[in-house]
């Protein structure tokens, strides 16, 4: 069914959500609810934008536009797009959405979103005892592991053993890569070669690189340099430390969300959503 006007985001419109909500009910539902309570919509104009100019989403994460159009099929939207956006919103609501002076928190927010498909696919494989190789994400990482000469089977089975540990490892690694790319841009011609050499060394020792190699870490870094500035204010550093401390201290994703105060964030959003419904 081709969408003629915007529709509110609902559980049944999210392709794959019915599966993942059984695998990790608290986390999957929180990622969707944070958008539902903020009245996110699947929007035909946003869909059209992604069709004529896919790169549009690369040049601005308009968190408050609340219009979704990426990976829409008819009137349904893919779970990974929704979960990614949901996580950005949870982190934004917890640590703020201001961009100027906050390059590191903005980068970290993106890095927390990138390995989400890894977490959910590894959790699904763990729950079902079966690796679902036919999804587009899995096909991509299988292809990238071949290209990079890394053992997919071994690394994915390790992720299946503890999906949240694998998620944490990938977040920290991809954040480190983003920071290095940011430093290369910041250093400009002064010691770009030295910094690229350090990046090469880090990537060489990486176990997780094929989980995120497809995600083009270059775009978030460019976004940050263009919109956040090159220098962090103190609050930026503080927020990154706090968020990483919570991540380190958490043993499961549910634990991580609870420590972030997700239940409180959702309760407040739900309250304002229902009061606006009453007023209407």
């Amino acid at each position, binding site marked *: 069914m081709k969408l003629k006007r915007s529709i509110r985001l609902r559980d049944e419109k999210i392709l794959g959500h019915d599966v993942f909500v059984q695998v990790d009910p608290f986390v999957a539902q929180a990622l969707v609810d944070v958008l539902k309570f903020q009245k996110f919509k699947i929007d035909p104009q946003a869909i059209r934008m992604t069709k*004529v100019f896919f790169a549009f989403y690369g040049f601005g994460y*308009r968190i408050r536009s609340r219009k979704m159009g990426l990976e829409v099929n008819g009137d349904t939207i893919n779970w990974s797009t929704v979960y990614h956006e949901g996580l950005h919103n949870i982190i934004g609501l917890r640590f703020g959405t201001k961009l100027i002076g906050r390059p590191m928190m903005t980068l970290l927010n993106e890095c927390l979103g990138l390995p989400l498909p890894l977490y959910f696919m590894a959790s699904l494989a763990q729950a079902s005892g079966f690796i679902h190789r036919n999804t587009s994400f899995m096909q991509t990482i299988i292809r990238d592991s071949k290209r990079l000469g890394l053992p997919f089977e071994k690394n994915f089975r390790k992720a299946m053993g503890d999906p949240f540990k694998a998620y944490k490892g990938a977040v920290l690694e991809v954040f480190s890569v983003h920071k290095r790319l940011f430093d290369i841009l910041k250093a400009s011609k002064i010691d770009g*070669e030295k910094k690229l050499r350090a990046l090469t060394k880090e990537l060489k020792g990486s176990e997780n690189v094929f989980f995120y190699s497809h995600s083009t870490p270059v775009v978030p870094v460019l976004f940050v*340099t*263009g919109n956040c500035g090159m220098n962090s204010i103190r609050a930026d550093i503080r927020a990154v430390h706090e968020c990483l401390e919570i991540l380190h201290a958490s043993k499961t994703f549910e634990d991580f969300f609870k420590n972030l105060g997700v239940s409180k964030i959702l309760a407040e959003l739900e309250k304002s959503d229902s009061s606006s419904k009453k007023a209407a």
Partner: protein
Amino acid sequence: MPLESSFILKYKEGDLESFDLLIQSLGGLPFRSSHDPFLAWQMIPKLMNLFLVIDESLLSLKFINQNPEGPSILIRLALQKAAVRNFSYGKRGSLGATTFIASIIEAVDLYFEEAKGRSKKSAFRSFQKSVVVGFNLRKYLIKYDLSHDLENKPELSKLSKKMAQFKKNNEKIFAIGNISGFILKVKFSCGTKSTQKDQGNLDHLKVILEESKSMEEFLKKFLQP
């Protein structure tokens, strides 16, 4: 011959004279890199998009020869070096010329591809059109990006109509280059203003593109110090 990549054939078969002009303008292959950056590029294929002006100290001959995008990187490097020297490409206050040159750089690859299948003249005419459409598209997106607070609602309906129009004018322009990356990079490197000197450079660039009858003629004017 240090350049031995098979990927280079596409360019040589398209327009050997223009390709040679570009490589000669580099004054040989001045890569100083003492390490092999190939692994980093291989793991992050879009790494090159990080730079508005490629830093040649990050390149090695092995990287150029083994990378399918090697020749394209060399061409970009040649055009960028000349553009920095002649038109202040990527410098603060040079928003106009930098945007126009970015459209040239993105359309050159397509020119070599098209020149292989049809006459060089007709490929050049198509190149001229692509540059103009690419420039207008980038100009529109920069204006859009600057006139909207990132945290406000974007005017999606107007933008999507305009994008559809651009796509209708030149389908290929959307398939080449990293437009969104450019919009972000140009803001960071050139700022949001255009100086009077930049206006002059932009006018000059438009004239040499319009008046040239072939890629070779255009490159001679563009590359000369």
